[in-house]
């Protein structure tokens, strides 16, 4: 983050991933309180801060439609009495990972930005809360968490992004230098391209920036993990599938339908992509109240996940429950997993076509491991694109980059508007320079002298 720009408000899940009882979403920055008071409602109306110090409130996190996500506890820690010395708010959720994930997305939707790894610590350091040695220790742990393969992929993608950004930046700088040259040297015979051409360059850059931004979710997959929920009717083999994917005994696997009552979370590393796997309770009519709660969490998980694995027992005909669950997941990115391949396949191609259409499906046996490689590949492809193009692909994987690209896109849109309104080009120049400098921050290049170099290098100027 460059000094001098607005300090933004960051958010992240502060507790380690897993099935702990409580998970905490932490926000830090000037808008922390206002974001949280939009996401969480107090028991008697909006949350109000009463005192200047720490405060704890009970409330309910709600989504954009006013649907309650979870009952939560909010802790206010005003600056400088917080870990980062900024205004910090923490939302403690009880409802398991699915709820946490939804609370997090609500915070993002209300204007917080996803924190980069170690960013809370960096802020704590910058604001004098901890010293350099402490900060370095924390940051080294943060960095060690991602494995080597992931880091390499990240570096390669950074390289591709840099090249794309640099090319765009060069084009825009060319336009800016032309405008500036004619402004500062009005008597010189400087070739100026017509406004339509300038508009085309700007529009092209904006589209490219937006295309890059569209890759951000895939990029986020690399750094936050792809949340994949395993759904299906009881005893279809969801927990066995989870175990097979993480290759260790984790979830309780039993023959009694409805054993998995909570959402079980595990992490798996699939081709360098961190995948967060949620095993949900078997979706069916619940037998008791405890199971009822599990089923509801399963539905919530389904909403929050990036990808769904619909598990059916391939050795048996499709049940009515299978069809119902299929209808529930129809709008989501999902892979059909035909489990229990070791017991033989009773479903015909025609039936499968009717059930799943042309969407991806994989036959596996969680028990023997048959087809599991195909499943891993399919999960990765669905979340970050085909392996082939991936290493060379341009993907935005860093929250800071995403933020800067967003700023560039805004500036470019403003410049486009200025030009479309028929305003003089030099009025668009300021926004174009903002875009150039935002792009420059991604690749570590600053405007300033460079603009003059460009002007004097390209145009024969001066008397």
């Amino acid at each position: 983050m460059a000094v001098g720009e607005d300090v933004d408000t960051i958010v992240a899940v502060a507790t380690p991933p897993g099935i702990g009882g409580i998970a905490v979403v932490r926000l830090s920055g000037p808008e922390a309180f206002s974001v949280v008071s939009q996401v969480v409602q107090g028991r008697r109306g909006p949350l109000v801060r009463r005192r200047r110090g720490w405060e704890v409130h009970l409330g309910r996190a709600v989504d954009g439609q006013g649907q309650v996500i979870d009952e939560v506890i909010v802790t206010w820690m005003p600056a400088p009495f917080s870990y980062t010395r900024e205004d910090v708010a923490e939302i403690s959720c009880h409802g398991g990972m699915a709820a946490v994930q939804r609370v997090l997305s609500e915070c993002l939707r209300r204007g917080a930005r996803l924190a980069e790894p170690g960013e809370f610590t960096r802020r704590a350091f910058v604001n004098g809360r901890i010293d350099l040695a402490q900060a370095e220790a924390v940051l080294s742990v943060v960095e060690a968490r991602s494995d080597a393969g992931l880091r390499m992929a990240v570096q390669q993608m950074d390289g591709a992004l840099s090249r794309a950004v640099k090319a765009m930046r060069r084009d825009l700088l060319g336009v800016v230098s032309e405008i500036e040259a004619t402004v500062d040297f009005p008597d010189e015979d400087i070739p100026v391209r017509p406004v339509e051409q300038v508009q085309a360059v700007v529009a092209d850059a904006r589209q490219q920036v937006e295309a890059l931004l569209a890759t951000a979710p895939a990029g986020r997959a690399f750094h936050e993990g792809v949340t994949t929920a395993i759904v299906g009717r009881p005893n279809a083999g969801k927990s066995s599938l989870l175990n097979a994917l993480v290759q260790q005994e984790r979830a309780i696997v039993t023959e009694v339908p409805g054993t998995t009552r909570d959402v079980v979370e595990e992490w798996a590393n699939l081709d360098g992509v961190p995948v967060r796997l949620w095993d949900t309770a078997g979706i069916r009519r619940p037998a008791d109240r405890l199971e009822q709660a599990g089923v509801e969490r399963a539905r919530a998980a389904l909403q929050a996940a990036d990808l769904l694995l619909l598990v059916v027992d391939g050795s048996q005909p499709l049940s009515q429950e299978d069809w119902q669950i299929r209808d529930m997941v129809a709008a989501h990115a999902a892979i059909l997993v035909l489990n229990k391949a070791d017991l033989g396949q009773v479903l015909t191609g025609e039936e499968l076509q009717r059930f799943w259409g042309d969407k991806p499906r994989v036959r596996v046996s969680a028990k023997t491991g048959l087809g599991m490689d195909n499943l891993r590949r399919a999960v990765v492809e669905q979340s970050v694109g085909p392996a082939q193009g991936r290493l060379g692909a341009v993907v935005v994987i860093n929250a800071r980059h995403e933020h800067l690209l967003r700023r560039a896109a805004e500036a470019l849109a403003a410049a486009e508007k200025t030009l479309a309104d028929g305003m003089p080009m030099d009025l668009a120049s300021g926004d174009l320079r903002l875009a150039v400098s935002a792009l420059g921050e991604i690749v570590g290049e600053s405007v300033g002298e460079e603009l003059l170099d460009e002007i004097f290098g390209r145009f024969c100027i001066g008397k």
Partner: protein
Amino acid sequence: MRFSGGSASASEYDVIVVGLGHAGCEAALAAARLGRRTLGLTINMENIAHMPCNPSIGGPAKANLVREVDALGGEMGRNADATYVQIRMLNTQKGPAVRALRAQSDKRRYHARMKTVLENTPNLDIQQGIVTGLVLQGQRVCGVRMWTGEEIRGRAVVLTTGTYLRSLVHVGSTQVVSGPQAQITSGQLSEELKAMGLSLQRFKTGTPPRVAKDSLDFSKMAIQPGENVHTGFSFFSARRVPADRQLPCWLTYTNERVHELIAENFDRAPVYSGDIQGVGPRYCPSIEVKVHDFPDKPAHQLFVEPEGWESGEMYLAGLSTSLPADVQRRMVAMIRGLEHAFITRLGYAIEYDALDPLQLWPSLAVKGWEGLFAAGQINGTSGYEEAAAQGLLAGINAARYVQGLAPVILGRDRAYIGVLIDDLVTRGTREPYRMLTSRAEYRLLLRQDNADVRLWDVAREVGLLPPERLRMVEAKLEGERALRRALARGRLGNTPFVARWLAERGSAPVRDGMSLEELLRRPEIRIDEVLALAAAEQLMDQDWREPLRRGCRRWEPLAAQQVLENVEQEVKYAGYIARQQAAVERFRRLEDRRIPEGLDYAAIPGLSNEGREKLQRVRPVSVGQAARISGVSPADVSIVLLHLDRMSRARGRGEGTGEGEGRG
């Protein structure tokens, strides 16, 4: 006007200004007008406010500097208005930020008028003589030593030596130790500055040949007439010369034969033969450099400009050169319209010593030396306007230093002068520095039309503007507010008259009523039209000119015109202006975090080596300035911020505001 009746050498001056070019004149006038006993020294009394290069003032960014100098009580604007032979408004098709006045000046009259002004200023003595050294007492400068061995005592000294420090003139392989236009140079002062531990750099600039007007064939050139411009450089001068009584400039072009001749003689050009070591300005390349760097360009523009009403010489703008005399003569004769041109003065390049401006505080005081200031070309700039702007500030700050007052420092968000000085003292310069609009981050706010109202508070604090003029600015501010209010309140109904009026101007009809302000936002509608319509329809409830009549009296029509111009820009570009203002607020946050003067960067852990070294060298006065130093990373800045925070916490309350003011 002498303050002491006779020779002043026995007594002490408050401020001594060394050099009376464009920086020196402003410095001397400012100090004297602020009541300081001031001495201006020049090598040649006939060269006060001399223009050794192009005969023009203004242009983009430069005009803004002139307007700011005027707004703060400097002389350049009025001197330019009183002596121009042609005036134009440039960039009229572009945005309001970059519109700029430019005048062709009468060099002799410009000099003569300025000399008269100096001579008639109370508290100011001007004297001819060469300064060879400074009188030092410890780390304090307390006077100058003349070539005659005389010492003149002064409590503050402002160096405005222009290109005169160890200057060397080149024409082909001929080198002459000389100032511009065959003036005496002063080499000794240069050595003395070095001995004081100051670091100097070698710069180069150049000028084209002058030709006899009666030897030119103007019928082969395109005429560039002047314009009827309703404003001047000064907010307070009313002289306007109608276009038909101005002198024209003429446009011609070089051609491929000229370029071939130049290319054949590259080895004889001092810039390529290795004779010139100084760094020249990129925006002012000589014709040999243009031909060398842009070989594909078949022709270069050449403006033939008058040097004055009575002058028989014309200036060949675009043909700056230090090629040998024979090449210059052959080259000129190959140019259309100049076939029979008689060269009255050859073009030349000049090398000179300049201070590395990183050795200056933002007040233009020299670091490490009490009572020493520098302004103009010696600080690494080029251009009359850049010089005058610095001279004014150096003169003001030298006077304030003598009085024990805090220096006046303008932010990058307040004035081009602020951008100029901040660039110099923060980033330094490796080539002669010229002001450009693209150097200003907030140029929509730093327009030439609003300089006086924009800098009103500074002008009042400085105290250089005569009371009558300060009142005029105050009245203008009131008038602007009144006009803005009236425009916002006046509502346009959908009457047949209004409908016809709009249709005549190709403007969209009004639907549910519209304020006059909204109407003015339309690109096709001018403010005078809005006012005429408002008058016809009786839409304005308030007489916005009333404050002007009260506060400006005889200046009222002039002030009204200026108010209209400013308000028109502010309304038409309100959205853009608001966005820059928002950016300024963010900028100010770091700018307002002052750094105490003696901060020891060696004692701050965690700084990068380069960052530490640069911070130690520049010793920024604010965190904002620190962040602009090249080589200081955002992480370094964070660490400095953190350190300041700790310091202020250790001290208990307060942030130490004001401690970091640049030295006066």
